């Protein structure tokens, strides 16, 4: 009804470039390959989550439960290390873990065959629009948690250590999400460009080493984003000693 199929990027040069709208909702809200890919990832995540926790066992025997417990356990341990204690880490765990999972899978979705070429499939993190959206969520989450943890006293830390650093401190709050989003976007976009370039040179074997490296980089970028977000939240909610 609102759907208006448009076009898909098909050339190597246009592959990692932001694709056009596949259809438009309400006359202005465009749905692009990036968004459909995210939806696909969400469906996969939802199904896997449902399957993993459908029949939870106290002593797990199903591989999926064991695997999920291991992943979440490691993530929680890691966040506990940053936050200082496990209870605090648990409070912010849902947001941070969701970032990690979504960004990791988004990064890896760019390695799927045909990603960037096929209509409706493009790594979401290879566009700045998506990464800045994530960073904006981190920005609001950080200050929301900060105010929630410390009340209005939260804003005091902008005037520390001395009052005339206030503009600089405020500026920093805006450079944080900017750097966060640009780092992620730049890395993934760059990888895709390199892979696309290698692909156009020799499609058969040339991109493979870069794709293998991308497996590593995709993980590292998701990890770095989550780690920085947790550090921002940790410092915003940290009590004064």
């Amino acid at each position, binding site marked *: 009804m609102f759907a208006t199929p448009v076009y898909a990027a098909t050339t190597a040069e246009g592959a990692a470039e932001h694709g056009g709208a596949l259809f438009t909702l309400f006359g202005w809200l465009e*749905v692009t390959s990036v968004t459909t890919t995210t939806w696909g990832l969400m469906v996969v995540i939802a199904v896997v989550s449902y399957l993993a926790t459908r029949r*939870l066992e106290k002593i797990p025997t199903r591989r999926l439960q064991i695997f*999920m417990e291991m992943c979440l356990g490691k993530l929680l341990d890691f966040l506990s290390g940053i936050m200082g204690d496990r209870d605090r880490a648990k409070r912010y765990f*849902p947001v941070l*873990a969701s970032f990690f999972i979504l960004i990791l899978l988004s990064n890896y979705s760019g390695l799927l065959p045909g990603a960037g070429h096929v209509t409706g499939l493009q790594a979401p993190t290879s566009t700045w629009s998506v990464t800045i959206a*994530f960073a904006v969520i981190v920005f609001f989450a950080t200050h929301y948690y900060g105010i929630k943890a410390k009340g209005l006293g939260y804003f005091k830390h902008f005037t520390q250590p001395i009052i005339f650093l206030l503009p600089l401190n405020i500026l920093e709050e805006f450079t944080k999400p900017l750097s966060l989003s640009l780092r992620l976007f730049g890395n993934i976009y760059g990888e895709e460009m390199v892979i696309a370039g290698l692909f156009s040179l020799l499609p058969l074997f040339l991109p493979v080493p870069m794709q293998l490296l991308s497996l590593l980089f995709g993980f590292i970028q998701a990890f770095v984003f989550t780690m920085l977000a947790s550090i921002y939240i940790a410092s915003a909610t940290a009590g004064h000693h």
Partner: protein
Amino acid sequence: MSFSVSDMIWAIINFLILLAILNKFLYKPLLTTMDNRMEQIKKDLYSAELAKKEAREIREEYTKQMEQAKAEAQQIIEKATKIGEETRENLINEAREETTKMTEKAREMIRLEKEEALNQLRDEVSTLVVMAAGKVIEKTIDQEAHEKLIREFIEEAGDAS
């Protein structure tokens, strides 16, 4: 590098939806299960520790009792052995005494029998002698002389025996 407000809005919406889904279907159930397990393990470990301690105490108590019982048994055995030995000695002594007594009695009886036999023999012999003597002298002596004669004879015979 292009920027699309639609993509950004969708990314935010998608993230929030995903957060809700993950929270409901993954984090809450899984973390709750993990916490419950940890709690259970902690509890179990604690009770196991408690049970171990209890078992150790019971074992110590048991060992102590065993040693006590062993010592007691040893004592009883020693006592029984002593009593047995004493009893044996007593029995032997008694038997010995009995034997001695019986021997003495027997001896006494033999002596008496012998005496009696001798007396009988003496009577018999004296009668025979008197009869023989009467026949030899062919004369009857009076009662008084007769008895005197016998007495003399017996005394002589007694001295001779």
